[in-house]
């Protein structure tokens, strides 16, 4: 996974609330190869005025969004589709829980800032002026130099900075997991399954 440290560049404003993952990537597109999802990102919002098609914001690495961004379906394709547009960081007042966690699996940084701060960034960045997101310092710097500190769970922060693969870490613990599961099976005999009881 690509590590994340500092990203700087245009920040495209998409300030509507509750932009769901069905809007970020339509269900018909989930069959497309991952590398091609970007062309379908935010499809229902596209039109002549689509912000990410404007010369100022084409390829912008930062997306500014309204509250509850990425609510809805668990499809990780939503993150891949945004990445396909070149986005590496989203800044919004809040996120759908599953989308939020999917971001960290893919080296995408979802920054949580108060609505007023996101709106102020959107105003300042409207002409394409660069916004800088520094994960090591946990600070977003607006074009006029205003700094917005953001909170992020330290473990998630570390994972992004290092580009850590969760699965790789857990695989190292397989012996420990097996021991735990054996003890658990004795404690909770009812939780084992009996697939043979149902005729397939």
């Amino acid at each position, binding site marked *: 996974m690509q590590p994340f440290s500092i990203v700087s560049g245009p920040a495209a404003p998409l300030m*509507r609330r509750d932009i769901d993952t*069905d809007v970020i990537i339509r269900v018909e597109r989930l069959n497309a190869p991952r590398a091609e999802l970007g062309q379908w990102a935010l499809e229902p919002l596209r039109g002549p005025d689509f912000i990410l098609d404007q010369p100022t914001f084409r390829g912008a690495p930062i997306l500014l969004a309204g509250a509850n961004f990425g609510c809805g379906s668990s*499809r990780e*394709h939503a993150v891949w589709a945004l990445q396909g547009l070149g986005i590496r960081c989203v800044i919004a007042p809040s996120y759908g829980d599953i989308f939020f*966690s999917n971001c960290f699996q893919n080296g995408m940084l979802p920054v949580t800032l108060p609505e007023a701060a996101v709106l102020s960034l959107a105003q300042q960045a409207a002409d394409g002026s660069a916004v800088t997101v520094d994960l090591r310092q946990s600070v977003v710097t607006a074009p006029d130099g205003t700094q917005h500190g953001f909170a992020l769970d330290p473990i998630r922060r570390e994972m992004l900075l290092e580009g850590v693969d969760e699965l790789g870490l*857990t695989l190292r613990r397989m012996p420990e997991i097996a021991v735990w599961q054996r003890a658990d099976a004795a404690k909770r005999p009812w*939780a084992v399954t009996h697939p043979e009881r149902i005729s*397939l």
Partner: protein
Amino acid sequence: MAKTLFDRIWDAHVVADLGGGWALLQIDRHLLHDLSGGPALADLAGRGLSVSRPDLCFATPDHAVSSQPGRTGDTYDKGAGLYVGLRDGARDAGIPFFDLGRRGQGIVHVMAPELGITLPGTTLVCGDSHTCTNGGLGALAFGIGSSEVVHVLATQTLRQRKPRQMRITYDGSLPFGVTAKDLALHVIGTLGAAAGVGHAIEHAGPGIAAMPIEGRLTLCNLSVELGAKMAFCAPDQVAVDYVRGRPLAPTGDDWEAAVRDWAALRTDVGAVFDKEARFDLAAVPPTITWGTSPEHATAVDGSVPDPRTLSDPAGRDSWQAALDYMGLRPGQTLCGTPIDWVFIGSCANSRLSDLQDAARVVRGRHVSRGVRAWVVPGSVEVSEAAEREGLPDLFRAAGFEWREPGCSMCVAANGDIVPPGQRSVSTSNRNFVGRQGPGARTHLASPATAAASALAGAIADVREF
């Protein structure tokens, strides 16, 4: 210290404390469906890994298969590869696969409780955000993304950060004609679609104790539309009675041990939640959505709100965009708005009790001319139980189409779509832009309201039927 139900289930599944509020959690049950299951199994194989505990995984096609009567895995040709991928991937890994037409096939969140796969006090995951449905039985159940699906397949564990906790307490009982679905929409409309973000929600109180399991499953299903990926109800005697005797439920001494363990799954008096809310069930009206977020909900006899009454610009823009998409005007009454489609189905409302609710309204009447109305049972079990009661004939005689079990028109990833610009009253859980097909206009409602609307040819108040 006083503990919550959530603390108890969480603590019992911590394989390793990873520090900072993170834990490596044992996953007791993993449901796989065609849309994400096959690709995840292929991804796993591509990494040279195998399924760690196939005995804890269960697979069935639901998302990308057509619901057309007589359908096969390739009736919807774009889903054929996903169907085969899940079937063959499950077979190769030794994972039970509940195939089309066979007992057990259905929407994952309908078949799992029915078969006794979902048990109180277990952790259950699936690559689907409505996995929280299973919390209705007192399981810690939540949706996960593709990477996490692969993680569970490979290790039967997940790295999770303990969420904050929220409790919603319900007093009183629901009025005539009002169901758990109306309640769920009312709660989302009142608290907002982001109220539960970052929280695990316990639905509690006398209103839950008096609610059948099917209603609890519906309420927990819609909790992700409140922003929470996990929601649950404490498993009481009603839950124990529901699980007893299900095909995969524990038996004998295991059953006795289970019931003893489940009796401890309670929230202590004095336990503290990060957030609380309270609702009086007697005050809940039949509820329907008018916009493109489940929080855009109002009483069925209410009217479309005016975006100009909102002070914040982002909210105003969202409401205006929703009205433009839905083709509605501020102040317009919802009742009487002509409709084109009715869909009764989805993991929110496709259980036997939902079909019975709709049937009570429909009996002896006919779908309005110009309306297409579908009933899509949630599983083969539901379909067979409905047949024993004569429901398919009742619905067909009334002009409904009776179809095969699956997600159908809720996810519209299977050829079952509402055409562009057409208006649908749907018992599903999402009214997002394009959710039921590009340009489709969705009003979420209960099965009874959907049935009444099909008969009226317009959004209808079921209390008048």
